């Protein structure tokens, strides 16, 4: 149990807290959806801002290796922003899947859609909603860049 305090004069540094008081979260959780969105966007915003900064760096990269290094960071920040907003990748690069017109965008021409396709670029979904279909190609077809 605490004995009588001997408060010394030095108050703790307040750092960001002063600013915090001024810019408290706007409306107090009027809607939960709004609060959830605000929280998710705050984190996603930061990741997007990072991605933009790295993108500039990538465009100014002196050589291929430096470019690849920064591109990796751009990709990572973008993925993070997407995750914070509940977006998830669909499928696995290079995987074979049964063709499904609801999920797949078929690359290349051809009269009939094939039974099995290969994932060339992953799609993006949120929960059950497909935002971008998975780009797939025919097996044996030359890979598109």
């Amino acid at each position, binding site marked *: *149990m*605490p*004995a*009588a*305090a*001997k*408060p*010394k*004069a*030095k*108050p*703790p*540094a*307040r*750092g*960001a*807290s002063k*600013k*915090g*008081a001024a*810019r*408290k*979260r706007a409306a*107090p*959780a*009027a*809607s*939960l*959806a709004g*609060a*959830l*969105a*605000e*929280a*998710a966007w*705050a*984190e996603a915003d930061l990741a997007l801002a990072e991605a933009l900064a790295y993108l500039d760096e990538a465009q100014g990269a002196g050589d291929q290796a430096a470019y690849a*290094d920064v591109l*990796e*960071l751009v990709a*990572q920040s973008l*993925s*993070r922003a997407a*995750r*914070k*907003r*509940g*977006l998830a990748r669909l499928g696995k690069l290079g995987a074979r899947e049964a063709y499904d017109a609801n999920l797949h965008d078929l690359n290349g021409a051809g009269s009939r859609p094939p039974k099995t396709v290969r994932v060339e670029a992953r799609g993006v979904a*949120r*929960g*059950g909603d497909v935002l971008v279909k998975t780009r797939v190609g025919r097996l044996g077809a030359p890979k598109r860049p």
Partner: protein
Amino acid sequence: MTDWTLCIDFGTAYSKAAAAPADAWSRFEPSMVRPLMLSGHHHHGNPFLLDSAVFVDEGRVLFGRAAIARADALGDKKRMALKSFKTLLSVSDLDRALNTNAPLSIDPHRIFQMRDLIVLYLAFLLEAVEQACAADTLVAGATRMSRRYAAPAWRSGDSAGMHQVIVQLFGEAEAFRALVGKKLMSPDGLPLSTISSALPKALANARAMDIGLIFEATAAAAYTSVGLEDAGSHLIVVDMGAGTTDIAALARVGARTIELPEARVTMKQAGDFIDRIIANLVIENASWARSKDDQSELWNVLMRQMRDIKESVFADGRATLRHRGKNITLSMRDIERDADFKAFYKNLSEAFAHGLMVVRGDAVLRGQTEVQAIAVGGGAAAPFIQGLLKKKTTRATPRVVARPATPDWAHAREFQGNLAPVFPQLAISIGGALAPDDMLAARGGVSPVAAVRTDIEAAPD
């Protein structure tokens, strides 16, 4: 609807709380599930997570995010914020642990016992819950609020004993909160003088707290099966938080959900442990960081970004960190090759296999053909945990079905996609608020809100 249920999940790293209408179990509606903004008063960081931390400063005590920020700002190795104190509650001689003096690095004034600091934190937590309830348009209209807290089923057979001690701590915290009120949320913390006058009074006059206990695993079962016609009869839960990884199994018998205690395992390795593995691996590989100063700088940089690093490693198999203009990359494979990780993983998979054997055995006895497996907690997405859930079993029945860490209802339109990403971490508090009373491990009663919401000046009842 004016009857509500509130569940507090006092976590090793973060506390969480959620409320739901008292009849949510039988009349489930996702939009009525209310995770509470315990850190709504902060302008950065996740508003649903309240950092479990206390910092004893020169003349005051700081709580939550402010405590961590202050300890960071001081950057003094000999001074630390008290964190992970939840693990203290799991020891067998709880009274003795609570009556221990706080270490010097935590309390340089040598005035606090662990009990004092825990009571202070719980008072801060209760005040945060109070303010978050008031700020939520739906919850604020509650006329009755029944409360429970979630805890792991730590001590086999003696959860009743533990429950009594924790209810007492909550009662003391509530008494302290009644004396100090909103000042608990001040970003500058509480003056030591306020504490030394109010805390002894609070400890001597604990309030009677009506608060039930729900096992964390049971809470997980509740949110997984709520509103489902085809909810499974048997469930195995892996909860990897910051301080512990807990495995528990549940069976539904008629209308009741019972825990199968033989399946229960708690490991002291979880998120914090993975953090240390990652930081050590990176530092070992950073050949340019050989001096003590370089290494401790790198350690701090890593720890500040650790959650993002883990998230990337778990989701994409690797994470890249930019430090002093160089990329440092770490992959899940690197972690899997680490000796400490291997030992942990071996224990974890053995514990899981054992739990699975118990729950499948029970399913067979009760003529059931399916066991569901689910991961919760901040580490739910870890591929090594998801891998365990999906591992093929040697015998085909009862079959094991892995359930997603985020239930379908958390993707409901009204959440606009923003509940799902944070769901696993909030899951226990949400499940605990949804669970019907007969899922409780120990009961608490219902208290009229007037008593729950005590402001500083409220007349004594």
